[in-house]
C-alpha cells in the first residue's frame, strides 16, 4: 500500500499538453494578425478623418508619399531634401510605370499619407510635382469616421 502511494507520488507530473496547445494557438493568432512595420507607411501619423472614404486599396505597386507632422516628405524611409528630390523619385516611378504599362499593367497609383496638420501647400507641391510627371492616379489616406480622437 505504502509502495503504491509512493509510486504514484513519484510519477506525478504536470500535464503540459493543454498549456502548450493554448500557447501555440495564441502564437499563431499573433503571427497571423500582426502586421510588421513597413518602410512604406509611417506609423503614428495623425490622418485626417473622412466618413466617405473607400476602403484602403493595398496594391503592392502603389507608391506611398508620407508627409510627417514636420512637413518632411518621406518615401520608402528616405526623406526628400527638396522638391527636386521628389521630382527625381517621381520621374523614376513614371519611367517604371510606363514600362509596366507597355506590358499591359495599370498606371502607377500614388497614396498621399500625410499628417492632418501639415499646411496644404506641402500637399499641393506634391500633387503638382506628380502632375508634372503625368502621374495622375492619386488618393489621400484618411481615417474612417467623423469624429477626431
Amino acid at each position, binding site marked *: 500500500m505504502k509502495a503504491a502511494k509512493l509510486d504514484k507520488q513519484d510519477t506525478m507530473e504536470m500535464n503540459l499538453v493543454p498549456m502548450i496547445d493554448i500557447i501555440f494557438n495564441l502564437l499563431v493568432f*499573433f503571427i497571423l494578425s500582426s502586421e510588421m512595420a513597413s518602410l512604406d507607411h509611417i506609423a503614428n501619423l495623425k490622418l485626417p478623418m473622412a466618413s*466617405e472614404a473607400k476602403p484602403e486599396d493595398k496594391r503592392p505597386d502603389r507608391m506611398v508619399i508620407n508627409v510627417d507632422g514636420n512637413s518632411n516628405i518621406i518615401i520608402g524611409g528616405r526623406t526628400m531634401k527638396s522638391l527636386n528630390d521628389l521630382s527625381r523619385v517621381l520621374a523614376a516611378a513614371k519611367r517604371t510605370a510606363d514600362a509596366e504599362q507597355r506590358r499591359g499593367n495599370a498606371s502607377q497609383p500614388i497614396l498621399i499619407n500625410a499628417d*492632418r496638420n501639415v499646411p496644404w501647400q506641402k500637399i*499641393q507641391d506634391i500633387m503638382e510635382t506628380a502632375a508634372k510627371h503625368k502621374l495622375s492616379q492619386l*488618393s489621400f489616406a484618411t481615417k474612417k469616421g467623423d469624429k477626431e480622437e
Partner: protein
Amino acid sequence: MKGLRRDMDNPKMQLVPMIDIVFQLLVFFFLGTHFRVPEGELDAYLPTGQGREPGPIDEIRVMLRVSQAGVGNAEVPPSVVVDKQACSMANLEARLQRLASDRRVRERVPVVIEAEPRVAYRWVIETLNLCRRAEFSKVSFAASKRNAAPAGGPSS
C-alpha cells in the same frame, strides 16, 4: 549501468526549452503587435495636361482662408467662402447639400476647392469629404498661384 538502460527505455521529450522559446515568441508578438485602425482613401485624379484659366463655365468655388485665430493653430477651422458668400466649416455641409439638391448642379457643375497654402490639410480633406457626401460628381482643387499652371488643378 542498469539505471541508464531504464532511462533509455523511457525516453522523455524535454519540453522546458521549447516552452521557453515559445513564450519568448509569444511575448515578442504580444508586445510587437499593434492593431491598425481601418484606414480609407479619397481618390483624386491629377490632370496630365495644362490647367485652364477660370472661364465662363459655371462652377462652385469653395475658398478656404486661414482665420485670424487660426494663424499657427491647425485646430481652428478656416473661414470659408462658397460662391462669394461667407460661410463656416460648421455650416458648409448644409450649404453644399442645398446646392447639391438640384441633380443637374450635382452632376454637371464642378466644385473647385481653393485653399490658402497655410490652411491645414485636414480642412481641405474635410471639404472634399463634404463634397463627396453631397454627391457632387466633379470636385477639383485650384492649383497654387505661384506656379505657372493656372486654375483647374487636380480633380477627384
